[in-house]
């Protein structure tokens, strides 16, 4: 899937947030260092911030509720931000959103910055607000996000159930970017995680050089819809060197 050239590697502690611009033709390889990580993530087109990750389109275009290897993550404009080219986990969810500060206090008590410094309890909601504001974006732009490494099942009656132990130490997912993308992420707890203590789970991320997408690419052929999504990206990049 990739030629495995690691261009950059870093670690993000649990309960933190960051943002970065990924270039077309590179991959973001994320590793759950200790097991039980959650990575909230959103995508935007850096040259048109109104184009953003669209969870409903991503799910319905691929007739899926869970996300795993082969799935593509779509913008609201019918294009693919990135493809899941590797996944040792098997299920990532995209419908449960984030915890707010108030919910965190209710679950685990208040751990303010004043009292706890770097061990404060940050929320996914505030994390996104902070990162989004760096690009002139606000709460209006906060679409339904990915919660990578987290699994939420639905029974026949529609009830949601958070699956504990979904991601183990060393599990990974790799996102290959099919267009330039602003990635906004946090490592705050999943909203349905009822662990006794605030789960603070670090991730390692690597930026890798991706091999060119071939006609027999797994993600491109995973669904006929993805072939058309790739075609839309191709049209978008006409006249641009790959």
């Amino acid at each position: 899937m990739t030629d495995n050239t690691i261009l950059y590697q870093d670690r993000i502690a649990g309960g933190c947030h960051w943002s970065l611009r990924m270039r077309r033709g590179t991959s973001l390889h994320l590793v759950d260092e200790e097991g039980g990580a959650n990575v909230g993530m959103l995508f935007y087109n850096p040259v048109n911030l109104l184009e953003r990750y669209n969870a409903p389109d991503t799910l319905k275009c691929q007739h899926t509720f869970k996300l795993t290897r082969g799935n593509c993550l779509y913008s609201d404009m019918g294009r693919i931000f990135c493809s899941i080219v590797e996944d040792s986990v098997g299920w990532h969810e995209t419908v449960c959103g984030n915890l707010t500060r108030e919910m965190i206090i209710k679950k685990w008590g208040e751990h303010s910055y004043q009292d706890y410094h770097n061990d404060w309890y940050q929320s996914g909601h505030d994390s996104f607000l902070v990162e989004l504001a760096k690009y002139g974006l606000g709460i209006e732009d906060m679409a339904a996000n990915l919660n990578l490494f987290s699994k939420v099942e639905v029974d026949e009656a529609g009830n949601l159930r958070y699956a504990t132990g979904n991601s183990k130490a060393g599990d990974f997912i790799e996102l290959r970017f099919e267009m330039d993308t602003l990635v906004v992420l946090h490592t705050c707890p999943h909203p349905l995680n009822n662990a006794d203590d605030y789960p603070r789970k670090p991730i390692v991320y690597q930026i890798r050089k991706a091999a060119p997408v071939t006609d027999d690419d797994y993600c491109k052929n995973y669904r006929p819809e993805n072939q058309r999504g790739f075609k839309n990206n191709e049209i978008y990049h006409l006249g641009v060197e790959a």
Partner: protein
Amino acid sequence: MIKESSLVPANAVYRETVPAGDYFMKVVKKGQTFRILDLEGNQAADTLFYNADDPAERYSAMDTIREQGNVYLTAGTKLISNQGNVMLEIVADTCGRHDTLGGACATESNTVRYALEKKCMHACRDSWMLAVAENEEFGMSKRDITHNINFFMNVPITADGGLTFEDGISAPGKYVEMKAHMDTIVLVSNCPQLNNPCNGYNPTPIEVLIWN
């Protein structure tokens, strides 16, 4: 959950028939009850809600399903905003299940779902784009168009993580009714989709009714 309403259409303070492919945009006041009636059956009504005093506060599918612990909407569901407030509550429902995960159709997603050459077919998002353009008093734009409710639409999720668009479970005369907990901008696209069973391949009118 099936729950019938005791409200009588003749007592409604407002009634409007919305043809397929058209939109409805109006403020429903706090305390008013608002009904969407599926006149001919199997018709998806793609709906968004905003706080009329501050449209940055809007219906949030994620917050709504997470807080009720269930992905389907029906009588008793509280429709939660992105700021954690109850905007409306579903007080009557003769359909029994509504979707909020499938999103709306857009010309661009139609290219992916059906065929690239279908890109110019009418779609819900185009109705919303026209709605925000024609109703400047609300100060809204594309960034305000988020994840909606699909009233009358049947999108079952399976235990192994599948999601399908099934034939509608609605029928002529079925309705869903909500009581507003705040002054709410209601924005409905009466879905024009011709490529899947959400409208039974034949989009039809809905009626909107409001009671004090």
